[in-house]
């Protein structure tokens, strides 16, 4: 469990990025942090694995204060994928990039091999095994960054903007993988602006604005509440827009995903 207790964080240049934020991420939870640019999302999740330490307040990971331990130790259980993959990648080949942490954590060579192959397949990177990450497209680099963390199978996976640069098919693969991880009891935290992706994944949502948490709830609750979304600079998902636009025809409007929308509309249209 990650327990953030009344945390404030101020960067060295004086920017107050978090103001008395409290939040609890339970084991096995799937959480999305959303909100406007500069709201403090990245700052918040960097506290989860000790990359940043609170200016005041405290962060407990499985009851250990992040101030009393090292990032290296925390990383084994809390994996972190950076928003910008360039801040994370440094090896000569994709294969080495993914192996690096595994070796650091003391995996034996045969396991390193297996995990690398598994991760390359998962993220559709097989053909780039021997390629330098810096010769890849933006979306491919992001997938290398994801692969290198998912490979060591941390108990908690924190992904800052995982869908950046990804096409529809890659996003769908990622969505299914996240759901699978989560059903195996892993904790998954994503920071994202991708409303349509969230609408299909349906995690618990935390909305941030100006260094504070302004709303928390299920995807259905949050994504169908235009007033709250606007405060966090987010738009209502397209499916919900359609149902809201048809409310006077007796449709429920708390619909966010494609499958439910299709089912509800089919029922009505077939009668016609």
């Amino acid at each position, binding site marked *: 469990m990650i327990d953030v207790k009344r945390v404030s964080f101020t*960067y060295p240049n004086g920017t107050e990025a978090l103001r008395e934020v409290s939040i609890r991420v339970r084991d096995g939870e799937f959480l999305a942090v959303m909100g406007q*640019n500069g709201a403090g999302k990245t700052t918040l999740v960097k506290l989860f694995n000790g990359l940043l330490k609170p200016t005041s307040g405290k962060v407990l990971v499985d009851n250990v204060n992040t101030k009393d331990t090292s990032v290296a130790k925390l990383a084994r259980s809390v994996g972190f994928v950076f928003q910008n993959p360039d801040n994370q990648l440094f090896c000569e080949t994709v294969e080495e990039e993914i192996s690096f942490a595994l070796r650091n954590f003391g995996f034996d060579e045969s396991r390193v091999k297996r995990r690398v192959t598994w991760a390359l397949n998962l993220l559709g990177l097989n053909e780039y095994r021997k390629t330098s990450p810096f010769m890849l497209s933006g979306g491919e680099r992001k997938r290398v960054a994801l692969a290198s963390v998912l490979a060591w199978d941390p108990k908690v996976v924190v992904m800052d903007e995982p869908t950046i640069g990804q096409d529809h098919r890659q996003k769908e693969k990622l969505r299914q993988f996240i759901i699978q991880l989560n059903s195996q009891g892993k904790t998954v935290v994503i920071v994202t602006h991708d409303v349509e992706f969230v609408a299909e994944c349906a995690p618990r949502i935390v909305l941030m604005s100006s260094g504070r948490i302004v709303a928390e709830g299920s995807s259905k609750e949050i994504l169908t509440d235009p007033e709250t979304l606007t405060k966090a600079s987010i738009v209502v998902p397209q499916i919900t827009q359609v149902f809201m636009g048809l409310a006077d025809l007796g449709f429920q409007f708390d619909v966010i995903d*494609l499958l439910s929308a299709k089912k509800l509309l089919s029922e009505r249209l077939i009668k016609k």
Partner: protein
Amino acid sequence: MEPNFASYSVGLMAIIKTEGLTYTYPVATKPAVEDVSITIEKGEFAVLTGPSGCGKTTLCRCFNGLIPHFYRGDLQGHIRVIDFDVRETPIHKLALHVGLVFQNPENQLFALSVEKDVAFGLENLGMLREEMQKRVNYALETSGISHLRLKAPHELSGGQQQRVAIAGIIAMQPEVMVLDEPTSFLDPLGAEKIFKVIRILNQSLNMTVILVEHRLDLAARYANHVIVMDRGKVILDGEPKEVLSSEKARLVGVGIPKVTRLYQRLEEDGILKASEIPLSSEEMIALLRGVLAGD
């Protein structure tokens, strides 16, 4: 080849024209862009899309001369931008006419303050101070970063950095604006606002816009030309409705708007049929209202 190509440059409206364009990065084994022949007209709002790694960024780098002048490698075929043969025009000359917002904003920002970064391109144009101040203010304002003008770009959040890169190009107002996934780090309302500003510049100044984007939910409504690439090649090129409703677009996994997907699912089942495929929620609502009227 040559005589054939010469006739394109006299075409009145074509602002970008490629013919059999094929490019291979140094040491790469296969081309990243292969046999691409496209025409973009002056004043168009073109959206370029396709799966991750299909060659979108590479094609954008050809538009402003980074390819071949910076990346080197092997460039075959023809490419003309405005009146320049890209191969024969140095980057600094092209840069006065073609603005590019990089996919990764962090790689583009280098000045000590946001304000200086946004003004940088204008200083190169030799613009008068007052005009420059006006342009910078407008750009900061419309990009929603006026409050950050004195901050250091590397001390900003990802989305704020992306806004700085976009503000730079809004201030420049180049004849051709190339934006490579410019909203990937932006919050949705911010992305919407920026698309609107770009649309205004596109219409009022007849600026040509080329936008690389996966999130067609937001972008499709502004486009009048959509190009879809797959594995280095252009596989679809035409009007947005035509392109986005095609079977091919669905097969390569282009980010077709969610409502369009919903419509397609209902159509497959024979439950809903429209003469024009909906691309936005407004269009979908109007369609469903029409069908359900009198319920």
